[in-house]
């Protein structure tokens, strides 16, 4: 199958989205005859070549980080550029990969509803939305911490290459936790403070900005 992949991360080649896609595409390419074309939306001046690739593809995957409970602005600009192909005969099946810093996949469910509606608007078959939370920081983590995550994306890609579908079991597994509750929330909150804050603090200290971390440059003068 011919797959068009759009990476909508504002960080492009340095993004966590890229890392997850690399593993997905490594799995995807294992099936003989499968090939893909990859675009970084932030690098496109207009979206002419992206729209052409969208129209020619047999399948499309759009991957990006959750930004403000929705899609990053370059992704919205791309979606607006797709307006002329709404309802076009032969639009490819379309699916999404959304990753977030927030650990709960439920944070992306509001956006998922939008994405599902978008596929209807375009007249594409919806192949689903893969949601993975807690991704911020993976570039600083040692390999043993990310091995399972990368293996899951490799498997997801491998199965997609064979079937043209996101494996429902893997999607469900990656989507955990949807939300935290009860003691789970307390434990998660404790670890987030311990490791999450340490992650930000180490960067603040490296930049000599730790003392200014609570700065309020736009606050009214008292």
């Amino acid at each position, binding site marked *: 199958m011919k797959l068009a992949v759009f990476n909508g*991360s*504002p*960080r492009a080649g340095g*993004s966590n989205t890229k890392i997850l896609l690399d593993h997905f595409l490594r799995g995807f390419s294992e099936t003989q005859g499968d090939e893909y074309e990859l675009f970084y939306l*932030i690098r496109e001046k207009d979206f002419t070549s992206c729209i052409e690739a969208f129209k020619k593809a047999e399948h499309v995957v759009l991957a990006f*980080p959750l*930004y*403000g*409970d*929705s*899609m*990053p*602005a*370059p992704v*919205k*600009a791309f*979606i*607006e550029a*797709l*307006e002329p192909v*709404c309802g076009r005969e032969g639009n490819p099946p379309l699916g999404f990969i959304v990753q977030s810093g*927030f*650990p*709960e996949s*439920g*944070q992306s469910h*509001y*956006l998922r*509803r*939008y994405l599902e*509606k*978008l596929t209807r*608007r375009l007249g594409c078959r919806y192949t689903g939305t893969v949601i993975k939370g807690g991704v911020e920081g993976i570039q600083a983590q040692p390999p043993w911490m990310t091995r399972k995550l990368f293996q899951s994306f490799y498997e997801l890609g491998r199965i997609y290459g064979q079937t043209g579908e996101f494996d429902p079991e893997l999607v469900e597994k990656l989507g955990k936790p949807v*939300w*935290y*509750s009860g003691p789970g*929330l307390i434990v*998660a*909150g404790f670890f*987030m*403070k311990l490791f*999450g*804050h340490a992650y*930000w603090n180490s*960067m*603040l200290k490296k*930049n000599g*900005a730790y003392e*200014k*971390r*609570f*700065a*309020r*440059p*736009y*606050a*009214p003068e008292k």
Partner: protein
Amino acid sequence: MKKICILNGSRSDNGQALDKYLERLEGILESRKYEVTRLVLRDMDIRYCHGCWDCWVKTPGECVIKDDSSRVLQAIIDSDFVLTASPVVMGFTSSVLKRAKDRFIPLIHPYFAIVQGEFHHRQRYEKYPLLGLILEMTPGSDEEDIEIISDIYARNALNLQTVLKFVRLTSDPEEEVADEIGRI
């Protein structure tokens, strides 16, 4: 409540109807003694967020991209109420508006806090303005789009630890919207 900021997210190609609506609304609000700041985002130099997080870890609270986004952030923090306006384009608010909104992250802190049982960002400022949203229906948009947008904007408000007070359409008379603002 005294200070209102209107963020006009209309597009350059067919923004006139929304522009006119907002001008009339602004007139009414000013006649009712509100101090109104109007920002027409499409006319401002606001670049895409790079996702570098320097506003969190290098120059806390300030973006390293020097453009008009800082005017938007200052207006937000200075206001009691921020009214965001946009046409519905492909089922969501415009990319012009989204580009400005992606640049809001210097207003929050990288640390997480648990709010209503969910992970959110810790507040950077003591107080954030209340929010409202005005949408212009365009051909092909429907009730479901409004619901989806409203849900996402309510989430945005939660992330800023404030409240989305209303979502209105430009088919509602300006007077009614002004009255609703008056009741906040």
